[in-house]
């Protein structure tokens, strides 16, 4: 962006500055650390200048918001036009308790819903399955049938509010619960909007709530893509997620690289099935973490948009909608401390600011008490208020990509893109994403990074305020969420009644038809919907698919 002559002059001036100014001071009073490394162990220099970004071409690499390569954001007006959706991930206990929480959040200014399911639901088991023992409602809400979904969204206008559902292995079934709930209220399928996470590749890599082996999982995913653009066109049929990869201990670079590698893998799988890339690509969405290293996070989001746009173009996408990356962000759960929990409010605010400056489309801010328990009402309200302050008081929304053009940020964005491309090569050499999973490549990379980070915390090289520095001995005094102890009983009784009252013959026929479709090549979604409408439970429907597809067992690597 500078001419040759100007760059030479700046390079010369920088050298002089180093010799006459920086180096002498550093010798007199040494810097606080010998090396400054960000959370990906990238060494950060003391100063960046135009020389560090001399190879960047404005029209090729930076461009304008709303235009290829979308580095500066996906909309021309960005947050001036529309704020991000404030979407707090929530769910616990019974559908009734969680329904109350949703209404509370909406009443306090939340603009979208996001469902957290409990472990049995995530694995496709009903609450009364033996493996569900001890897990009911602990990490989210228990949803075992359409009945539970009806209660979960009672008095919530699903034709007007969008809902994100964090569900992966059994995503087609839980999505069918949501669609069937709208069907029952005579809301056209074309009117409901939301997202299913439905990203199984990162389950094998990081989050680990997989059910089926990779191949049938990918088939189900492509079934949802196809069903989505035909019948539920406002639905994002996948949220390709780096969040969990990061939480499992990866670096920011690994989060970026592995997530995008997964994204391109889904696109290739759908194209291989014969789907038109420009038909399904506009409904692909992403989900990233917002961690502690402020500039690294912002660079990550910007790099992600550019890598995606370039990669999709290479894969043959033509429509701008297919090239632009829309993403949700959640602040880093793993960065929260159980010690001095109130200070988490500050961490979350800074992380959320990075997500906004990085151009996010929707945002979850963690509650301060989440290292201890599921959030209390007060804690989640403060988390939501944090977003509202950023949105309406700070002015950071007034211009698109406000940090664009910073020598440091542009250098870091470029570098993260380059490192991601290096990872793509390594994955390619292993035979692609699924072979790399089967060889434990991602799992090992993440385990190495998380162990290295932990060792640096233990030896004091990395500071965590309240944990290895500035500790206090005071007991934690913060009110925690208490769940209804009778919830599990309520849920199990509801399941029993459901099984007693439904038309069993109709359900049996629907389950049988699903089994046949799963063995063949037809799209499974219509068959799943038939089972759901006949009040088949999650465990029963998933059981049919387990029978046909088998279950995945992961290599235990540490």
């Amino acid at each position, binding site marked *: 962006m500078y001419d040759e002559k100007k760059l030479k002059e700046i390079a010369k001036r920088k050298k002089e500055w180093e010799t006459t100014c920086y180096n002498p001071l550093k010798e007199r009073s040494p810097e606080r650390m010998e090396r400054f490394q960000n959370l990906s162990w990238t060494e950060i220099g003391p100063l960046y200048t135009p020389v560090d970004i001399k190879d960047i071409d404005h029209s090729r690499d930076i461009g304008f918001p709303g235009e290829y390569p979308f580095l500066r954001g996906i909309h021309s007006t960005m947050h001036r036009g529309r704020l991000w959706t404030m979407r707090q991930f929530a769910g616990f206990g019974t559908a009734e308790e969680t329904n109350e929480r949703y209404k509370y959040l909406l009443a306090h200014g939340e603009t979208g819903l996001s469902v957290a399911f409990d*472990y*049995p639901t*995530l*694995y496709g*088991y009903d609450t009364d399955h033996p*493996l*569900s*023992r*001890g*897990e009911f409602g*602990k*990490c989210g809400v228990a949803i075992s049938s359409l009945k539970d979904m009806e209660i979960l969204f009672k008095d919530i206008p699903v034709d007007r509010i969008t809902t994100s559902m964090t569900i992966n292995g059994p995503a087609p079934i839980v999505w069918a619960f949501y669609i069937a709930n709208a069907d029952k209220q005579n809301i056209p399928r074309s009117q409901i909007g939301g997202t299913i996470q439905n990203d199984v590749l990162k389950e094998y890599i990081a*989050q*680990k*709530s997989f059910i089926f082996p990779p191949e049938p999982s990918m088939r189900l995913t492509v079934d949802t893509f196809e069903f989505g653009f035909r019948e539920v066109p406002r639905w994002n049929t996948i949220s390709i997620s780096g969040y969990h990869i990061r*939480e*499992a*201990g990866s670096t920011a670079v690994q989060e970026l690289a592995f997530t995008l590698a997964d994204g391109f893998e889904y696109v290739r799988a759908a194209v291989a099935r014969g789907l038109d890339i420009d038909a399904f690509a506009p409904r692909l969405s992403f989900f990233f973490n917002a961690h502690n290293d402020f500039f690294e996070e912002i660079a990550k989001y910007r790099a992600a948009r550019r890598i995606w746009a370039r990669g999709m173009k290479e894969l043959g996408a033509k429509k701008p909608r297919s090239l632009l990356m829309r993403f949700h962000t959640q602040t880093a759960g*793993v960065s929260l*401390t*159980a*010690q001095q929990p109130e200070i988490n409010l500050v961490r979350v605010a800074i992380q959320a600011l990075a997500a906004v400056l990085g151009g996010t489309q929707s945002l979850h801010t963690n509650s301060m008490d989440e*290292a*201890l*328990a599921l959030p209390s009402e007060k804690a989640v309200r403060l988390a939501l208020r944090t977003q509202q302050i950023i949105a309406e008081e700070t002015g950071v929304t007034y211009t698109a990509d406000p940090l664009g053009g910073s020598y440091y940020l542009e250098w870091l964005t470029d570098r993260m893109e380059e490192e991601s491309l290096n990872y793509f090569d390594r994955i390619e050499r292993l035979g692609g994403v699924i072979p790399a999973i089967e060889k434990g490549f991602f799992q090992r990379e993440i*385990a190495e990074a*998380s*162990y290295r980070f*932990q060792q640096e915390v*233990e030896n004091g090289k990395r500071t965590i305020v309240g*944990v290895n520095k500035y500790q206090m001995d005071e007991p*934690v005094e913060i009110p*925690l969420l208490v769940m209804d102890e009778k919830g599990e009983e309520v849920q199990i009784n509801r399941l029993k009644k459901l099984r007693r009252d439904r038309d069993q013959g109709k359900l049996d026929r629907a389950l049988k038809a699903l089994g046949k479709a799963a063995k063949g090549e037809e799209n499974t979604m219509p068959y799943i919907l038939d089972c759901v409408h006949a009040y088949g439970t999650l465990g029963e429907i998933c059981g049919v698919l387990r029978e046909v597809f088998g279950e995945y*067992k*992961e*290599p*235990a*690597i*540490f």
Partner: protein
Amino acid sequence: MDKKIRVLVAKPGLDGHDRGAKIVARALRDAGMEVIYTGLHQTPDMIIQTAIQEDVDVIGLSLLSGAHMTLFRDITDKLRENDMEDILVVGGGIIPEEDVPRLNEAGVRGIFGPGATLDDIIRFIKENVKR
């Protein structure tokens, strides 16, 4: 030379959060112990079977889902039924302060929550293992 301490690091239940278990497994191995990691989704019976087969001195349980009061106690109950109480059982995860005494009483001797250091865990095992 002393026989190495044999540790089974186990993930009971449906919880998929394995970052902590893997870090602890590595740290114990680096501290000179023999470590066997079960992988995810283990039932209490599977954990007991592996403990018998591998003839371990210590079982380290990791659970972040909140199901520890049920699953940790299922495991210590089964250890008692099988006369395996000489095995030292420790646990970690998101475990509220008020659950700790009840877990101790049930036979989970050491509980290591957020903020416990790897050294704390290693030291506790070395000091309390019965051999």
